[in-house]
């Protein structure tokens, strides 16, 4: 009740009503609008750069050991059971699958349009659960799953592209798309190679292509770990991991653990490097915004100091009429609050409108920006404008307002 009465006093008893403090409101709005614009533009720019350079951040990541060159030799740190278990327990990790090379040679044999194709391949083994995971994710019907005696297999997209290119050059067969290969069969002759025969007796596997994936091996098909283990002469040694994340945002938090275990995620390294570079850009923007805020703060400080000075006698009269220091504090804080709220609201509206106008203009002028707008405000940046500008207003008016509350009531009787 008393606070409301003092609000009425704050509204017009001390010089101009706060809504007439256009200079202060505009300077705060300017800081708010420019900060919102700059941060939202940096968001949009970051997304645009990442899309153009590395595509969207993935949810599934292939991890490889870091390789070191020692003269002509290249060694890698390898993957251990400990590192695999640690990674599995990290926040955001939904699933983790091992990948290993089958050390025996293999020959892939397939037929299409009455013509045979065979080629040396390096067979890769992936954890069995990955196949289950993939079947559920692809929502495969029971009839499209491999029948008894057949082994599910995945083909790396790189191999498929080479295969299809070779077919189009060397045969007259109609071209195939990668997706048409799904559900088709091929045979793997383990132990055979055009280079050298295996010393162990050969084994033949009939495989059905479950999917084409860019995430598994590079030089050959992937089969379940358990099958590969049975035909391998020695225990399989994981050489890569397939990591499924709840959200791509967990990628950044993963980096320290990857570094600890000497692992790398080639797909995301560039994205993170770009993100880090843009992080510096954001810091520069934050400093620029801070500088603007300081300028607005100085204007606020000067204005409030002048107001206190001009109204010294009036404030003294208030004290003589029974106003406590708290009352004077509240009168000024009401004014500060109004200016802060009005400035932040205006800044937000102007910033959003200017940003949307920029998006429209950008989309009209540059087609690339139609899909990836430059002005990309986040809820966070919009919500933070309010407390930040009000805090700024409050901080810079603190000292003059404090001086106002110290106004001595004895100024009043000594008027004239």
């Amino acid at each position, binding site marked *: *009740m008393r606070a409301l*009465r003092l609000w*009425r*006093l704050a509204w017009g008893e001390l010089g101009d009503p706060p809504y007439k403090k256009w200079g202060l409101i505009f300077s705060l709005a300017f800081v708010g609008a420019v900060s919102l614009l700059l941060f939202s533009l940096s968001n949009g720019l970051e997304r645009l750069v990442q899309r153009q350079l590395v595509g969207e951040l993935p949810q599934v990541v292939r991890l490889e050991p870091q390789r070191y060159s020692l003269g002509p030799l290249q060694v890698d740190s390898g993957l251990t059971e400990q590192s695999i278990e640690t990674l599995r327990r990290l926040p955001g990790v939904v699933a983790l699958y091992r990948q290993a090379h089958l050390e025996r040679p293999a020959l892939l044999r397939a037929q299409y349009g009455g013509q045979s194709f065979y080629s040396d391949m390096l067979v890769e083994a992936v954890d069995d659960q990955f196949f289950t995971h993939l079947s559920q994710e692809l929502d495969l019907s029971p009839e499209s799953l491999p029948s008894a005696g057949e082994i599910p297999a995945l083909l790396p997209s790189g191999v498929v592209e080479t295969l299809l290119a070779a077919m189009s050059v060397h045969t007259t067969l109609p071209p195939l798309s990668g997706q048409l290969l799904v559900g088709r069969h091929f045979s793997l002759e383990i132990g055979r190679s055009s280079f050298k025969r295996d010393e162990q007796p050969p084994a033949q596997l009939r495989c059905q292509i479950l999917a084409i994936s860019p995430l598994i091996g590079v030089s050959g098909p992937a089969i379940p770990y358990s099958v590969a283990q049975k035909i391998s002469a020695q225990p399989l040694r994981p050489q890569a991991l397939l990591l499924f994340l709840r959200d791509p945002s967990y990628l950044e938090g993963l980096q320290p653990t990857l570094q600890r275990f000497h692992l790398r995620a080639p797909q995301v390294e560039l994205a993170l490097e770009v993100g880090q570079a843009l992080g510096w850009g954001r810091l520069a923007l934050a400093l620029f915004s801070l500088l603007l805020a300081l300028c607005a703060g100085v204007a606020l400080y000067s204005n409030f100091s002048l107001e206190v000075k001009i109204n010294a006698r009036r404030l003294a009269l208030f004290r003589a*009429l029974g106003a406590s220091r708290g*009352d004077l504090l509240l009168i000024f804080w009401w004014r500060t609050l109004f200016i802060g709220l009005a400035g932040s609201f205006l800044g937000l509206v102007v910033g959003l409108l200017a940003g949307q106008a920029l998006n429209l203009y950008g989309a009209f002028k540059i087609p690339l920006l139609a899909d990836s707008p430059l002005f990309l405000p986040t809820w966070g940046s919009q919500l933070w404008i309010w407390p930040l500008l009000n805090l700024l207003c409050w901080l810079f008016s603190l000292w003059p307002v404090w001086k106002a509350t110290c106004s001595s*009531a004895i100024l009043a*009787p000594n*008027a004239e």
Partner: protein
Amino acid sequence: MAPPLLECRDLSFSYAPKSQAAPLLANFNWRVEAGQFWLLQGYSGSGKTTLLNLVGGLLRPQGGEILFEGRPLPASEGQLARWRQEKVGFIFQDPQLDHQRSVLQNVLLPLYFGAKPLAQGQARALELLEFLGLTPWKQTLAGHLSGGQKQRVAAARALLNNPVLLLADEPLAHLDPPQAQKMIQLLERLQSYSQAAIVMTAHYLPPKLEHPDWQILEVGS
């Protein structure tokens, strides 16, 4: 026996307490009973206004104590502000009105700092304006009033909260003798109307303006 309304005991005050100069007030004793009219006389710089500020709680004494109705003045700033609001009214040499506001709005100003309901305060303000003959001007902007009318508005503002002590600092300064006479009449009317004790400071008044019932204190003598 009821304690006096106001009592100063061994009061000391100096604006430069660390200097060797003699203090403005030293071991000063004074009693004001309820309903009395006091005239504090003295030359410029004798300490009249300082004494008024001390008893009004606007300044703190450096020695001695001030008792109001037998109790020391509140120690905390907030309690002192509340006490001042409830018990003391000030009339200044300059009426200090907001010229952009109406007479009624000026009189109501002390209500903003108190807990009294606005309706009750408004009724009291209208009553005071009626008593002071300002009812026809209640909606007039204060800037449009004459000097005497402004002083009456300031008096109404000082009496809004029914103070028991009215402190008037040099209300006759800059007034010609007929205006000073009117001001004194106004103060006497206020006293008989409100039953408040009045303490007024002034330079030496012509004897014809003084009233036989007044208590006179020579400050700085």
